């Protein structure tokens, strides 16, 4: 066991039992999976991406490149989860990944032997012959070998929440800088949101031994948290990572609400996406320690020196029995001190410098370590765990030291990632030996390690000043903030990038297996721009996004080109800061809740009538109403059509767009919107109209009724209802703001039913309140008027027909929709009134040749649809000018026609293409396509509408309808597009 006897922020009074690769272990609340496994002596955590080399734990945070596991099982399996970020819970199960058959014995480790062949970009140079082998042989092998963990492959059983927050100051990170900033801003009364990805506030204070205001850092963090809780305007979000920055102070954070439990509590989301709008932000995200590139730097047991301190101080775990510390300067000596204090033997200290301070000499003496100054590490030994380190002293003499832990202090990268999300490029700073934030997102300030400030006292001061300044900018002034005190001195940054010498691979990207040799190869082949370097070698593209190794890769390239770090630059950090679950960003919008379903006011009535519903845009509409004994939708549809044509039927048409228009210039507006004239329409009459887009193609069609002199109601197609309203608002507000007209959508306010068939008048008469006169003389075809029904409820009645029968549409306020449906049914009972759905509606409109969705597809003109003569010549209207363009008036354009099969038993299908009867099946002979089809019960065979080149001139011609994707070719006769009652006698009946 590697658990220290005392200390740490773990609860030793409780034990959590957990399993890794099927073996059971014990840990404590407060542990991560990584710390608990280290405490149990586990060193091998995973296998690398390409070479399948054994890998251990490098870090103690989200920057972890190596210790990735599959967390949980079944539908909750979560691949590629860094063990360093998994809070231990009782019953946790995790599995190693990217190995076969086991972590200890992985067959694909053979790749390591082939590594001379598998250099960066090797795949671009081979696998080209024979060409057909790529999909059949090479690629399947590559795909199986690649990837990391396994996706669950089952629907995610948990749910995710989305929430919004507005604040004055967003503080990102609750380390010393973030706590000081939040305190300074919160004490001024600013609304502060403090986001911390860890379950505990404190950041590095939890991992280091420095004191603040005279108390241990962790204690001060707890005090600061208590003080923040006393500020009513401060919101603390733990387990919450700010993932991305958007324009104008918008941020997205993801809160891991229940990831520290086996599964969420009932009704609890697993994670929550916070959309935060902040006037100001203080980025206090800290830094990430770098891994230096040296021979053998990937062996399990090689760990970042700062992570070693985290395991010692926070988790009370000794990550090794005997350590070697490799450092370039003062930072590694803190690890020396902490190892010594916790009684972990140090076998050797390797400092790249030849001279060190007297205090460091004292520390070295106290540790009993063999001190190597001006020395370097030239290799590591061991199998799946480290057992020794090769050192070359300043004298060049090689030495070997037994050790199972190599702590590497290579220097720190400020966590500048969020500063780049709006395009700001990090800037190399020679003094800090790091890339520091460049141009900042507007409203953002950076404090502490993220800004390149590492001394605790300075970090606290910067945080407090940053928080106060942010609050000030957001309108909260106050006295200068009190600055928490610490007494450490700044440590000069003395980074180690690359240590030459040694024969083993030196990695700059542990997860993707990118080595110094790969960087050299990229340089040799001309991939020297950092973007080319990244893309060619995949440096920094793994799940850790190069947080520990990326800059060393840039340094290697800078050394090869001799251009220096500033000129070499770094790649832009892309959102998200750390990987974010897709489910969290989708929230509740999945399954049936993906989009709201709109139901008509009479939905329940239709359901009671045994309707089958179909998705039409956002609506659910009755498609047909199955009666007992019917086994096929076509049976139901035919019965419904026959009922309408033979007696009477009722159809819910509430989904059609309805726009009420009022004002003295309403007529002018309608004249401008439609190709035909409306201003001359008498009160109490309805007219059919067609609208174009400004480019001259048909936009929408429908009827508009003049209810009163200055009050009109327009109907639109269901699909275009929102866009027509928007278009009208554009026309009025932008093009014709002087017109005195107002309009509003009333689609949701009116339930509307079509009552159609020879007995429709009798049904309508019985539906309306007694005494209303709807005789043909009083209420002729294309009349409209206001009546009452249901005992005094206003009803708008329109005598319009889509089916071609004597027909009415009757509308009532939606609250009465259900009642009206039942009233109509009762009124029609004597005539056997039949509810009909979309299919019957569609069949009848095709029989009548009315254009709808298939014809109004945005690619057709008024002329194409046979409505050329409707276009008024004496007025301006939207689309008028562009409709005159030659290609829109070309007589060879496909034009609306009817088709019927030459053999009556043949079925027609929409989407088939039309060709001359004996023409070869090539695109050069394409003459159009079938837009809509239906089986016509009235005619006893299939009929169709089509767009056919020069259609009107071809009536009587036999053409071929080719439908290769469904395997059919049918000979059809071209006919006029109206199949039933072309004279329109019925609808005037």
């Amino acid at each position: 066991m590697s658990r220290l006897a005392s200390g740490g922020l773990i609860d030793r009074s409780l034990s959590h039992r957990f399993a890794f690769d099927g073996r059971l272990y014990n840990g404590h609340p407060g542990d991560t999976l990584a710390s608990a496994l280290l405490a149990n002596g586990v060193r091998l955590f995973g296998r690398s991406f390409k070479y399948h080399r054994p890998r251990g734990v490098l870090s103690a945070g989200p920057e972890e490149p190596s210790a990735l596991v599959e967390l949980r099982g079944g539908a909750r399996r979560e691949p590629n989860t860094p063990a360093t970020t998994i809070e231990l819970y009782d019953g946790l199960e995790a599995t190693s990944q990217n190995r076969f058959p086991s972590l200890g014995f992985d067959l694909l480790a053979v790749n390591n032997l082939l590594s001379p062949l598998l250099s960066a970009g090797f795949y671009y140079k081979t696998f080209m012959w024979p060409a057909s082998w790529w999909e059949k042989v090479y690629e399947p092998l590559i795909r199986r070998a690649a990837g990391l963990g396994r996706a669950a492959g089952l629907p995610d059983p948990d749910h995710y929440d989305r929430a919004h927050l507005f604040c004055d100051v967003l503080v990102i990170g609750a380390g010393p800088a973030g706590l000081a900033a939040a305190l300074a801003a919160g004490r001024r009364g600013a609304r502060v949101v403090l986001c911390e990805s860890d379950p505990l506030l404190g950041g590095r204070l939890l991992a280091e031994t420095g004191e603040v205001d005279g108390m241990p850092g962790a204690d001060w963090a707890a005090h600061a948290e208590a003080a923040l809780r006393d500020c009513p305007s401060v919101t603390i979000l733990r387990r919450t990572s700010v993932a991305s920055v958007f324009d104008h102070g918008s941020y997205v954070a993801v809160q891991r609400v229940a990831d520290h439990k086996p599964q969420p509590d009932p009704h609890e989301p697993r994670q929550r996406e916070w959309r935060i709008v902040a006037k100001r932000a203080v980025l206090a995200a800290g830094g990430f320690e770098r891994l230096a590139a040296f021979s053998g730097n990937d062996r399990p047991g090689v760990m970042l020196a700062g992570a070693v301190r985290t395991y010692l101080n926070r988790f009370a775990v000794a990550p090794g029995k005997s350590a070697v510390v490799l450092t370039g300067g003062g930072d590694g000596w803190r690890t020396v001190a902490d190892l010594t204090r916790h009684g972990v033997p140090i076998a050797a200290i390797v400092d790249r410098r030849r001279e060190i301070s007297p205090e460091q000499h004292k520390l070295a003496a106290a540790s009993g370590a063999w001190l190597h100054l001006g020395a370097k590490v030239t290799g590591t030994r061991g199998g799946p765990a480290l057992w020794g380190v090769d050192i070359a002293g300043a004298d060049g003499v090689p030495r070997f030291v037994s050790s199972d832990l190599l702590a590497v202090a290579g220097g720190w990268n400020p966590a500048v990632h969020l500063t780049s999300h709006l395009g700001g490029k990090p800037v190399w700073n020679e003094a800090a030996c790091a890339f520091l934030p460049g141009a900042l997102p507007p409203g953002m300030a950076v404090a502490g390690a993220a800004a390149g400030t590492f001394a605790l006292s300075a970090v606290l001061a910067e945080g407090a000043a940053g928080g106060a300044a942010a609050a000030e900018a957001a309108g909260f002034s106050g006295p200068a903030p009190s600055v928490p005190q610490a007494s450490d001195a700044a440590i000069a940054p003395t980074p180690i990038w690359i240590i030459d010498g040694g024969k083993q691979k030196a990695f700059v990207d542990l997860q993707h297996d990118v080595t110094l040799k790969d960087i050299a190869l990229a340089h040799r082949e001309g991939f020297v721009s950092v973007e080319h370097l990244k893309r060619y070698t995949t440096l920094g593209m793994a799940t850790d996004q190069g947080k520990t190794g990326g800059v060393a890769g840039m340094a290697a390239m800078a050394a090869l080109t001799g251009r220096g770090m500033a000129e070499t630059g770094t790649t832009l950090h892309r959102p998200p800061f750390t990987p974010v679950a897709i489910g969290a960003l989708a929230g509740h919008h999945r399954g049936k809740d993906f989009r709201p379903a709109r139901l008509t006011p009479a939905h329940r009535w239709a359901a009671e009538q045994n309707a089958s519903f179909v998705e039409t845009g956002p609506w659910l509409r009755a498609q047909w109403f199955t009666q007992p004994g019917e086994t096929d939708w076509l049976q139901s549809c035919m019965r419904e059509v026959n009922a309408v044509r033979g007696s009477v039927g009722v159809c819910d048409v509430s989904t059609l767009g309805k726009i009420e228009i009022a004002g003295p210039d309403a007529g002018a507006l309608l004249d401008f919107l439609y190709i035909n004239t409306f201003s001359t329409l008498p009160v109490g009459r309805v007219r059919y109209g067609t609208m174009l887009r400004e480019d001259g193609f048909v936009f929408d069609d429908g009827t508009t009724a003049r209810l009163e002199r200055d009050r009109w109601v327009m109907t639109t197609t269901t699909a275009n209802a929102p866009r027509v309203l928007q278009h009208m608002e554009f026309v009025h507000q932008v093009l014709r703001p002087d017109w005195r007209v107002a309009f509003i959508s009333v689609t949701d306010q009116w339930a509307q039913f079509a009552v159609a068939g020879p007995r429709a008048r009798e049904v309508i008469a019985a539906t309306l309140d007694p005494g209303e006169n709807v005789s043909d003389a009083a209420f002729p075809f294309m009349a409209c008027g206001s009546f009452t029904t249901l005992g005094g409820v206003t009803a708008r009645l329109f005598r319009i027909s889509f089916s071609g029968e004597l027909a009415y549409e009757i509308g009532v306020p939606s609250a009465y929709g259900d009642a009206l449906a039942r009233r109509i049914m009762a009124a029609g009972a004597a005539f056997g009134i039949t509810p009909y759905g979309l299919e019957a509606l569609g069949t009848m409109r095709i029989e009548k040749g009315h254009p709808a969705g298939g014809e109004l597809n945005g690619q057709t003109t008024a002329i194409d649809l046979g409505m050329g003569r409707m276009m008024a010549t004496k007025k301006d209207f939207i689309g008028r000018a562009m409709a005159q363009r030659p290609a829109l008036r070309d007589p060879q354009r496909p034009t609306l026609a009817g088709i019927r099969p030459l053999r009556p038993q043949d079925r027609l299908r929409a989407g088939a293409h039309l060709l001359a009867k004996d023409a070869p099946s090539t695109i050069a002979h394409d003459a159009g396509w079938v837009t809509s089809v239906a089986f016509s019960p009235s005619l006893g065979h299939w009929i169709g509408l089509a767009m056919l080149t020069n259609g009107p001139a071809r009536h009587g011609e036999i053409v071929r309808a080719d439908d290769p994707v469904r395997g059919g070719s049918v000979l059809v006769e071209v006919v006029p597009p109206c199949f039933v009652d072309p004279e329109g006698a019925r609808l005037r009946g």
Partner: protein
Amino acid sequence: MGYSFLSLVREALRGQTGWRPAWRDAAPKPAYDAIVVGGGGHGLATGYYLAKEHGLTNIAVLEKSYIGGGNTGRNTTIIRSNYLLPGNERMYEKSMQLWEGLEQDLNYNAMVSQRGVLNLYHSDAQRDVYARRGNAMRLHGVDAALLNETGVRKLYPWLDFDNARFPIRGGLLQRRGGTARHDAVAWGFAHGADRLGVDIVQNCEVTGFRISGGAVQGVETTRGYIAAPKIGLAVAGSTSRVAALAGLRLPIESHVLQAFVSEGVKPLVDGVLTFGAGHFYVSQSDKGGLVFGGDIDGYNSYAQRGSMPVVEDVMESGMAIMPAIGRLRVLRQWGGLVDMSMDGSPIIDRTPIDGLYLNAGWCYGGFKATPGSGWCFAHTMARDEPHFINSALRLDRFATGAVLDERGAGPTPNLH
């Protein structure tokens, strides 16, 4: 040295030290026979085909930054030729045929992988629209198959068939569609063009045009004036800006399209899938990451970043058809600048200025066209007239009305 397994083995034995640059980082000469502005996939392909098909080797491809750094390097890598309108389909199919022999042609493995592109449909009406398109493809001699729900279930059994707001009824499948490794396409064309003598000049931004007598004479660049009697623009995303330097105003808006990649996982999605009731398309790279995207952000932008509502829309749409991806994590997201043309289709044509040619307006779908676009543009530049294959992709089609509006959305770029 050519690229092959043998050369790779030989190099393995000497530490991969014998390789030379994949292409020369050329310095610009004072004059060329032709210049292609833009070192993305289309520009590099144009350079390659100018040399290969038309024998023009004293030419240069000018790139303001590093090659392949624009949309070539930030797309979702899909290749397909499943267009409805003949004017588009013949160009995209030419491109598909070039993809099919590209790697052997270029001696560069761009990982062209024909694992199929499946467009899901969710209603009878949508099925018929897809049938029309599939039939048009078949009339072109292009493969297309209309699958019913059972057919889709066989390919992707874990899609949400049973609890979906918009149930999956089937799909239009182009088996020859698939993906290619985007960066490698740029590098491969650069490699191929370089071997034919084409100068690839990086860090060379065009800052102006010299035009006299209605004909272009050359370009001013950050690396000096370069003369050429033929200049082709292949600078999608920045087309309006560069064309404005020559006094042209175009039917194009620049918009942002976002794309996403997840962490790598073992094989899950075999081919390319698109959602028919929302904006979402996805494939899985050979490295294991799901590569996916959705709708454009919908406003003019030259900032390579999008906004959150579109991110959420994409994730929601993804979860709507693939509820099994909830726990996979988005690793990176990015935004690219796309040339949205006013009818949603590209332009490969001459311009009103003699010797100045335009390759633009690729909307969100230029990657798949890379070889075909280069081939057509090279022909148009070399012969001073469009090939039949790009004869419908004219600049004057907006004036004549012969627009190529696949979606019927009209002259509003963010609806295409």
